[in-house]
């Protein structure tokens, strides 16, 4: 195999395989599942953009990168396709279920409604398992599909546990939560999904258990970084002039206790000696000017701290990957998919 496939070639290959699996679905269900997998960011989106199919591309790119070490192995490429499609299905299913639980006005939820969205999520989770079971028909170690399915099941349970913590936290005052609890939730949700993507890639490349766990850890750290960055930027948008905000319900309005909100509450509590019951961010526009300014300053502080911690986790992921690969360079394609080819290092020269 001459080097690593480019992203668009990978997408085409995976798209073609995915469409074959979708053909096996009943037609009305296939329409809804295809519609979900064709939204922006998903593998069937057309015209394809840089971000499309990222859940599938991560394990696939990782296998490609690792196969550069071991030489061509068509069996591993087939396994990589299976892992990639399973990951696309699992990632898409969890996105849908998150939209339902958060009552987000996302395109799939608006298009399908709640009931059909949940139904599509269930179908995608089952489809992921069908894809992995199909690997038993190939000339691969029989333990591989079992290990991949085991990883998927564990991840789904961990993510559900994280979501449970997140949902219960909505009922608690923000001041009661700690930074560590918020990071645990981020780890259990986004962290486990990205860990799964890396783990599946490492399993398909037939790495030893310890190496598989280390690649999973890189994914977990990146997942936490992505979740924190997401939470910081979502809240940041809220502080912009009304004309720049989207119509979507904010984390504040939903009562979600993301890290920037928890940090803001704690800052208000310590700086202005407010009681935890007095701190409520949900109706900022109704506060008197002086109080509103204090709240906005505290939110800004929470956002900037969260962004700093997101950068920290991202740097930890980069270092963990560097330790794994040693002197070997990671392929540019894998770096792009992991999102680790940017500017943090350049600042060291200031």
């Amino acid at each position, binding site marked *: 195999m001459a080097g690593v496939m480019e992203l668009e070639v990978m997408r085409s290959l995976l798209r073609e395989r995915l469409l074959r699996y979708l053909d096996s679905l009943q037609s009305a269900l296939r329409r809804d599942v295809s519609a979900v997998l064709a939204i922006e960011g998903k593998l069937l989106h057309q015209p394809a953009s840089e971000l499309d199919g990222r859940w599938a591309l991560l394990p696939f790119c990782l296998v490609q990168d690792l196969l550069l070490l071991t030489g061509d192995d068509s069996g591993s490429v087939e396994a990589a396709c299976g892992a990639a499609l399973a990951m696309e299905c699992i990632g898409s299913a969890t996105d849908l279920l998150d939209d339902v639980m958060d009552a987000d006005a996302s395109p799939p939820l608006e298009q399908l409604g709640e009931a059909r969205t949940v139904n599509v999520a269930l179908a995608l989770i089952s489809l992921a398992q069908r894809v992995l079971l199909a690997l038993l028909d190939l000339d691969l170690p029989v333990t591989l599909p079992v290990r991949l399915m085991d990883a998927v099941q564990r991840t789904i349970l961990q993510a559900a546990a994280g979501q449970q913590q997140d949902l219960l936290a909505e009922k608690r005052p923000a001041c009661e939560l700690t930074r560590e609890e918020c990071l645990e939730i981020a780890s259990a949700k986004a962290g486990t*999904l990205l860990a799964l993507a890396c783990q599946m890639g490492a399993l398909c490349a037939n790495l030893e258990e310890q190496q598989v766990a280390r690649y999973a850890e890189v994914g977990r750290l990146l997942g936490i970084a992505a979740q924190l960055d997401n939470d910081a930027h979502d809240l940041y948008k809220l502080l912009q002039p009304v004309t720049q905000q989207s119509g979507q319900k904010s984390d504040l309005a939903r009562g979600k206790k993301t890290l920037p909100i928890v940090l803001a509450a704690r800052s208000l509590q310590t700086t202005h000696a407010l009681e935890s019951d007095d701190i409520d961010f949900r109706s900022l526009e109704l506060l008197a000017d002086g109080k509103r300014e204090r709240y906005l300053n505290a939110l800004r502080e929470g956002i900037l701290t969260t962004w700093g911690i*997101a950068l920290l986790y991202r740097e930890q992921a980069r270092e963990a990957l560097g330790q794994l690969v040693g002197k070997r360079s990671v392929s540019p394609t894998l770096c792009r998919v992991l999102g680790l080819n940017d500017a943090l290092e350049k600042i060291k020269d200031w």
Partner: protein
Amino acid sequence: MEEQQIQEFVHRVCTNKAVQDELALDAEGVIRRANYSLRVTTILLRLAPCLAFEQPLTMIEKWWHV
């Protein structure tokens, strides 16, 4: 520990105008004097324009917008 350092530094700048002004004049000096690890120093230098001048955040990870 590094999370705590970032949190404390940002809190100090956000709640103390004198520190914010000093950061605006000499971000590198203020941050390096705190004697953090290279990793934390690098991160705080990246945050400095937002802390000192209220510049907008940039999306660090467009790829994985979970």
